[in-house]
């Protein structure tokens, strides 16, 4: 491009440059999902020392959908979550939240505030704090240092915490130290913490690992009740659990989508059978 063209491009009056536009604080209200999908991953590639953890992955999640993602170990499920939440940056490809928020450019806390909540594979909560305090910290408020120093809980915020406690079924343990909870309760607390963020999209990594049968059922109910109001992406190994909650299942293999459809379609897909059972 010649100098003149660059100048013309710069002087164009119908566009606003990023650095001129006042940067609005990112929030879920700004999210634009008019075209249906809430999450767009297009031709995403991530490689670690030559190994392609994600290889030209393209995936769309619809607003309000409950999607399960399955795949053998090393298929790239966790890496995909890392890319969406900003922990890992893709080498190629685009990741958009709604149509207007480019996730590859935002740091992790801003992605969280934009409305993406993530549950880790291993339950990760604040063990030394009480159940109530865990939820309080997760609440969608001003999270900068100075406002936090003087913040007091309003009664609406307290009600909101109690509401979430009821949703995840931990109300009886409200002042218990979180470290004392059972494994399953910790998983629910973490899901509760995600809900406190008022996220539009929940990424849930292996929610039922290590749970008893009853706990699994409870979790399945919880997650299906969340879909609709939120979009939920569940990564899980437990096929029975996936069958019980999933409408659409995506199978990942070697960093790209192998098959997509409802559970029966996917299970009868010869490619999927080959990957899972070996040839």
């Amino acid at each position: 491009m010649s100098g003149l063209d660059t100048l013309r491009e710069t002087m164009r009056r119908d566009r606003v440059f990023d650095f001129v536009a006042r940067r609005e604080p990112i929030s879920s209200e700004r999210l634009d999902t008019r075209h249906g999908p809430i999450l767009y991953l297009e031709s995403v590639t991530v490689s670690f020392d030559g190994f392609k953890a994600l290889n030209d992955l393209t995936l769309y999640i619809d607003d309000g959908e409950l999607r399960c993602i399955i795949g053998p170990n090393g298929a790239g499920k966790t890496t995909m979550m890392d890319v969406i939440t900003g922990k890992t940056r893709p080498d190629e490809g685009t990741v958009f939240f709604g149509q207007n928020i480019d996730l590859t450019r935002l740091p992790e806390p801003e992605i969280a505030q934009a409305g993406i909540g993530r549950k880790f594979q291993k339950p990760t909560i604040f063990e030394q704090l009480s159940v109530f305090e865990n939820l309080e910290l997760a609440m969608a408020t001003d999270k900068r240092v100075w406002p936090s120093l003087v913040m007091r809980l309003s009664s609406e915020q307290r009600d909101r915490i109690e509401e979430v406690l009821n949703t995840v079924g931990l109300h009886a343990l409200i002042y218990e130290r979180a470290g004392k909870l059972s494994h399953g309760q910790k998983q629910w607390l973490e899901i509760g913490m995600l809900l406190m963020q008022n996220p539009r999209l929940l990424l849930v990594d292996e929610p039922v690992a290590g749970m008893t049968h009853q706990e699994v059922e409870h979790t399945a109910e919880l997650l299906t009740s969340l879909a609709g109001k939120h979009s939920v992406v569940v990564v899980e190994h437990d096929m029975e659990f996936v069958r019980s909650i999933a409408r659409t299942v995506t199978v990942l293999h070697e960093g790209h989508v192998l098959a997509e459809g409802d559970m029966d379609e996917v299970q009868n897909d010869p490619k999927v059978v080959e990957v899972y059972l070996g040839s």
Partner: protein
Amino acid sequence: MASRGLLLSVLEHDRGGKIFLGILVASLVVVPILNLAVPESSPFHLSTFTVTLLGKYLSFALLAMALDLVWGYCGILSLGHAAFFALGGYAMGMYLMRQIGDRGVYGHPELPDFMVFLNWQELPWYWYGFDQFWFAFLMMMFVPGLLAFIFGWLAFRSRVTGVYLSIITQALTYALMLAFFRNEMGFGGNNGLTDFKDILGFNLQEDSTRVGLFIATALALAMGYLACRFIVRSKAGRVIVAVRDAEDRARFLGYKVESYKLWVFTFSAMLAGLAGALYVPQVGIINPGEFSPLNSIELVVWVAIGGRGTLYGAVVGALLVNYAKTFFTGALPEVWLFALGGLFVVVTLFLPRGLVGLFSKVRSKASVEGAT
């Protein structure tokens, strides 16, 4: 009235803190009386030497509390906190040097003795302003704070954590020690700053000045405790604990973990600087030895022995270990380092929550037995 309410809310559910502040306030009254009002012949008389020693312990206690805030609550094991202490001390030392005026050995009206000795003709620019106490006072907190801010900004932004961070804080204090040893730095080199005459117009050798310094130190410790308590009781304090226990979780909840760490680290460094500034007029000297990496490690031992994450535990640790040090280095000098090392091993193995943790454990056991 509002400040009273704030004070009460800060100390809510803080039994240990109330006891600690109670003892501190009592000593504020008792120590001056025993020193100034009780005649020297009386067995209850407290010598000025002891008062100064207590003042020194209290400045160490403030330093230990500053470390406890970053280590016990935020999980940042700083092995260079004595550097901030020493910087605060140097700022105070510079003020005290300027107060000497023409009473130095060489009688130069402006230059401190060591500069005359080095044949310097004029005061270096960074010594300007230190003849004013308000300026020196600001620098006692500003310089350590600024260093902590720059260091923390670089380290936390690059997500240096755990043992790596500890090692570079050691390197930081070591580098500062080497720098301050150099005569060209203009801080008195090897000998440091000493031979102080007076502070705010009061003669440093007077008993009443010594008592005044003790009172100032005790008040600073009390204020420091309330400030730290205010922080750890706020929501920001819970975020700090959250960062310690699960940094990634806090980040994915939308907290800028780096800002919180940086803020706590800087505040703690300023507190450490204040402690150093109170230490120097009481011991009468500041030299590069204060930057020695060993000092920072000893400081960590105080906090570990007293008990992390309670603030007053750090105070208990600092007082006990320093008293033991005074006692042992007087009575059995060759045993002291072994005793310190042994104490650290015992505490690490058997008392993960320090003496304060042991105490509360015994008490809760007793109350359980009392209930049945």
